[in-house]
C-alpha cells in the first residue's frame, strides 16, 4: 500500500519524537525533567488504560486506584521482601491487577440489569477493600514498605534513567494497544456496547468476552505501571497509594482529553500533569483535592466529549487540503448472489427454523405457552396477533436475547436455544427492531459496517464496502457519514433494514418495519422485502398492517395469548373462525 502525504509526515514526526525521547537520559539534562517526564508517561498510561474499558465501552470504573495499588504492592512485596529482581516483578504486578479486574468484570458483566452501576460500585468498594486487606496483613502492616535498597539495573548510568525508560516503554505500549483496539473490530464492538449493549450482542458482538478483554488489559496496564511507580517513590504506603485522587485523576484526564479517541487521554494526561505542577501538598492537600473534584464535575457537565473532537475539527479546517483525508463512500462490494439472478423465489419443504413447544415466562406471566412452528426455507412467514400476544417475545427467544423456559429452537436441525445471542447472529439469524435502535455515536456507514463485520465475518475494509452496498440498496448512500439522530423515522427504519441485511442473514426477522410509514413508503418497503426474499433469505415478518401481510406472506401464523391459534395460507388463516373472533373480532369489538 502506498502512503499518503499525511501518513508520511505523521510517521516522520513519531520516529523523531521516539528517538529523541529514548536518547534523553543519555544527555546531561537536569534530573528534575527526567523525573517530571516520567510522571507524564505514568499518567498517560493510567488515563489511556482507563479509557480502554471506561471510555470505549462506557463502563465507568472507579477502581483504577485498586488495580494500580495492587501492582504497587505486588512489586514492593516481591522486590523488597522476597528479593525477586525488580524487573521480574513487573509482569507479576500486571498479572495480579489483571486478575483482580477480570474477577470483578466476570462477576458484574453477567448481570442483565444495572451492569454499569454495579460495576462502578464494585470498583469503588474494591478500592477500599484492597486497601483494608493490605494494611491489615503483613503485606504492609500499616508501616509502609521501603524499596530504597532494591537494586535496579542502570541503563544510561543512572537508576532514574531506567525508571524513565520504563515509564516511556509502558506509555508507548499502552498507546499502541489502545490504537490497535481503536482501529480494530474490537474497538467497534466496544463502541457499540457503549451505545446499546443488547443490540450489539444481537448483531454478533461477543459483548461479554470483549468487556472481559478490555478490563483485563485496562487493569493489567494499571498494575504494571504501579509496579514501576513503587520503585519511583521508593517508599509505599496504603494512604498514598489508594488516595482518592488516584481514583479521580485518570477519569479527569481521559474525559478532559476525549475518552472516545485513542489519543485523547494522553493529551488530557499531559495537559493536566503540567497544569498541576507544583500542586499543593501538606496542609493544602485537602483543598487541592477539592479542586480536582470540582474540575471533574465541570469537565463531565460542560465538556463531556473532551477537547480531542474540537482539535480534530480545527485541524480539518486549518490544515492544508491535501493533508486532510476526504470522506469518500467506499467502493460498494456487491455480495455474491445466493440464487441465480432473476430467479423466482423457491420455497422448499425443508424447515430452516423449528420451534418446538417453546415457552417463556417472566415471573408469573406466561408470554409464550408451548408454540410449535416450522419456518420453511425461502418462505415469507407473516406473524400476526394482537398486542401482547407474544410476537416480540418469540423473536427475542429465537435471537437468544431471552432464555427459553421450556421447549427448544432448532436452526438447520441443530438446537440454538441456550446459545448466546452473538453466536445465534453469526449462524445467520438477524432481526430489525420495531423502534429503530441505531448506535447513536457511530455514523450511518459504521452502523451498517459493524453489522457486516460481526454478523458476516468481514474484515474492516470489506465490511465498509459491504455497508456501502447495503446503504445504496436501501437508498441511504447520501447519509453515509451522518449520525443516526439526523435521520427521519422512514430513514431510521431503512437503516435498521440495512443493518440487518449487512449480516447477510439466512433468516431475517422484521419487527413491524412498516409501522409509521405512509402508503408510498409501505409499497417501496414491500418491494424491497420481496427482493430480499428472491435473493434467498427466509423472512419472518411481524406486522399489524393486514394488507401487507396478505400481499407478502406465503403463510401466516397467528398468536394469541402466547399460543399459536392458526397457521396456513393467508386466505385460509383469515377465514379461520377463531382468528376472526380473537384477532379481527376482538379488534372490532374493542
Amino acid at each position: 500500500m502506498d502512503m499518503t502525504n499525511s501518513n508520511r509526515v505523521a510517521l516522520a514526526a513519531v520516529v523523531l519524537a521516539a528517538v529523541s525521547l529514548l536518547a534523553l537520559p543519555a544527555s546531561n539534562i537536569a534530573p528534575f525533567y527526567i523525573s517530571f517526564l516520567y510522571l507524564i508517561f505514568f499518567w498517560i498510561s493510567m488515563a489511556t488504560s482507563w479509557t480502554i474499558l471506561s471510555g470505549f465501552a462506557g463502563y465507568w470504573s472507579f477502581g483504577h486506584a485498586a488495580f494500580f495499588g495492587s501492582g504497587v504492592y505486588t512489586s514492593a512485596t516481591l522486590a523488597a521482601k522476597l528479593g525477586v529482581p525488580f524487573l521480574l516483578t513487573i509482569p507479576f504486578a500486571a498479572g495480579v491487577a489483571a486478575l483482580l479486574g477480570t474477577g470483578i468484570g466476570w462477576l458484574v458483566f453477567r448481570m442483565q440489569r444495572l451492569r454499569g452501576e454495579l460495576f462502578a460500585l464494585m470498583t469503588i468498594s474494591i478500592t477500599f477493600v484492597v486497601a483494608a486487606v493490605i494494611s491489615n496483613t503483613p503485606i504492609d502492616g500499616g508501616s509502609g514498605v521501603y524499596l530504597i535498597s532494591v537494586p535496579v539495573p542502570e541503563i544510561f548510568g543512572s537508576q532514574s534513567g531506567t525508571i524513565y525508560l520504563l515509564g516511556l516503554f509502558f506509555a508507548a505500549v499502552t498507546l499502541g494497544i489502545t490504537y490497535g483496539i481503536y482501529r480494530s473490530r474490537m474497538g467497534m464492538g466496544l463502541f457499540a456496547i457503549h451505545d446499546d449493549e443488547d443490540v450489539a450482542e444481537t448483531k454478533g458482538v461477543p459483548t461479554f468476552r470483549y468487556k472481559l478483554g478490555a478490563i483485563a488489559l485496562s487493569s493489567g496496564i494499571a498494575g504494571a505501571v504501579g509496579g514501576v511507580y513503587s520503585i519511583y517513590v521508593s517508599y509505599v504506603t496504603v494512604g498514598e497509594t489508594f488516595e482518592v485522587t488516584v481514583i479521580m485523576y485518570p477519569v479527569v484526564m481521559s474525559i478532559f482529553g476525549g475518552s472516545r479517541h485513542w489519543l485523547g487521554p494522553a493529551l488530557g494526561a499531559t495537559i493536566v500533569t503540567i497544569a498541576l505542577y507544583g500542586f499543593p501538598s501538606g496542609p493544602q492537600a485537602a483543598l487541592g483535592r477539592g479542586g480536582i473534584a470540582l474540575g471533574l464535575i465541570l469537565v463531565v457537565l460542560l465538556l463531556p466529549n473532551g477537547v480531542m473532537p474540537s482539535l480534530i475539527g480545527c485541524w480539518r479546517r486549518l490544515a492544508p487540503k491535501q493533508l486532510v483525508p476526504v470522506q469518500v463512500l467506499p467502493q460498494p462490494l456487491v455480495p455474491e448472489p445466493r440464487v441465480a439472478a432473476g430467479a423466482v423465489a423457491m420455497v422448499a419443504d425443508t424447515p430452516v427454523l423449528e420451534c418446538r413447544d417453546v415457552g417463556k415466562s417472566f415471573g408469573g406471566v406466561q408470554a409464550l405457552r408451548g408454540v410449535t412452528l416450522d419456518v420453511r426455507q425461502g418462505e415469507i412467514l407473516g406473524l400476526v396477533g394482537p398486542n401482547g400476544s407474544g410476537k416480540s417475545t418469540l423473536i427475542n427467544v429465537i435471537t437468544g436475547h431471552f432464555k427459553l423456559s421450556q421447549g427448544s429452537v432448532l436452526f438447520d436441525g441443530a438446537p440454538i436455544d441456550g446459545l448466546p445471542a452473538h453466536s445465534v447472529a453469526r449462524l445467520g439469524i438477524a432481526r430489525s427492531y420495531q423502534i429503530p435502535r441505531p448506535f447513536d455515536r457511530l455514523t450511518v456507514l459504521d452502523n451498517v459496517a459493524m453489522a457486516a463485520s460481526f454478523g458476516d465475518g468481514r474484515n474492516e475494509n470489506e465490511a465498509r464496502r459491504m455497508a456501502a452496498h447495503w446503504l445504496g440498496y436501501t437508498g441511504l448512500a447520501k447519509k453515509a457519514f451522518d449520525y443516526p439522530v439526523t435521520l427521519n423515522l422512514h430513514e431510521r427504519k431503512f437503516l435498521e433494514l440495512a443493518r440487518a441485511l449487512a449480516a447477510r442473514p439466512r433468516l431475517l426477522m422484521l419487527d413491524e418495519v412498516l409501522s409509521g410509514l405512509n402508503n408510498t413508503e409501505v409499497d417501496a418497503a414491500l418491494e424491497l422485502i420481496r427482493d430480499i426474499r428472491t435473493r434467498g433469505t427466509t423472512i419472518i415478518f411481524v406486522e399489524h398492517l393486514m394488507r401487507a401481510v396478505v400481499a407478502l406472506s406465503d403463510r401466516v401464523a397467528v398468536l394469541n395469548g402466547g399460543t399459536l391459534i392458526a397457521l396456513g395460507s393467508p386466505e385460509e388463516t383469515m377465514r379461520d373462525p377463531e382468528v376472526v373472533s380473537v384477532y379481527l373480532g376482538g379488534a372490532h369489538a374493542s
Partner: protein
Amino acid sequence: MGGSAMPHLSLLEQALLTGVLTGGLYGLLALGLSLSWGLLRLVNLGHFAMALLGAYLTWWLGTSYNVAPWWAGLLVVFVFFFYGVGLHWVFMRFRVTEMASMLITFAFAVIVESTIQTIWTADFRRYETAWGSQSWVVGSLYVPKLNTIAFVVAGALAAATWAWLRYTYAGRALRACAEDPPIATAFGINHRGLSFLLSGLCAAFAGVAGVFIALIATLAPSEIWSWIGVVFAVVIIGGLGNPLGALAGGVLIGVCEAMTMAIVNPSWAPLVSFSVLIALLLFRPRWI
C-alpha cells in the same frame, strides 16, 4: 485473635443487639440513596458526604453555639431539603445520565470531604452530651438509648415513606414515572415537580442520618468512604426504591458486621459488606 475460644454467649447477644441497632442507622443512610436510585435513576454518591456534613454541622452548632441537637437537626434537615432540590435542578439542566450522576456526585463527595477537612481538620471529633452514653439494662444486655431512638426513627421514616409511595397519588405517580417516564407524562403526571420533591426528601433524610451520626459516632472526614461499600450493599439487598427493604438490608449487614467484629477481628468488618455484595452477584436473586 485467631484460634481463641468462642466468645461468651452474652457477648454474642450484645453483638447481635448492637448489630441490629447499627443496622437501623445503615438503613437510614440507605433510605435516601435507594429512593433516588430507584425512582429518579440517579445514583448519589454525595449522599454519604451530605450525611457527614450534617453530622459536623450538628456537632459544630452544639459545641460552638450551644444549639440543642434537635434544633440543629431541624435546621440541617430544612437546609438540606433545598440543597436536594438544587442538586436535582443541576441534573435536569445538564440532562445527566445515570452513569454520569455517579461521577459527578463522587466528585461532589470529595469536595465536601475536603471542605470539612479544611474547616474542621482531619482530627477525630466526638459530640459529648449528658445523655449520649446512657443505656437501659435489660437482663444481661445494655441497650444504648440513642441507638435505639435512631433505630425507631429509621423504622418510622422507612414505614412512612413506604406508605407514602404506596397509598398517595404523589407516591404512585413517582413509581409510575420510574417505570415509564413518557407514558406517565402522557397521563398528566407532573414528573418534574415530583422529582424535585423526592430529591429534596432524599437529601433531608441524609440530614436526619447526619444528626444521629453526630450523636452516636466519632467524626472524621474520611468516614464518607467507609460507608460507601456498606450502604450500597444495603441498598442492593433491599431492592432499589424499596424503603422497608433498605431497613431490612441495613439490619442484615449490621448484624453480619457486629458478629464479625465479635468473633473475628474488628478490622475485617469492611470486608463483610463486600463479601455480601459478591455473594449477591454470584447468586443473582430475582429482585436485583
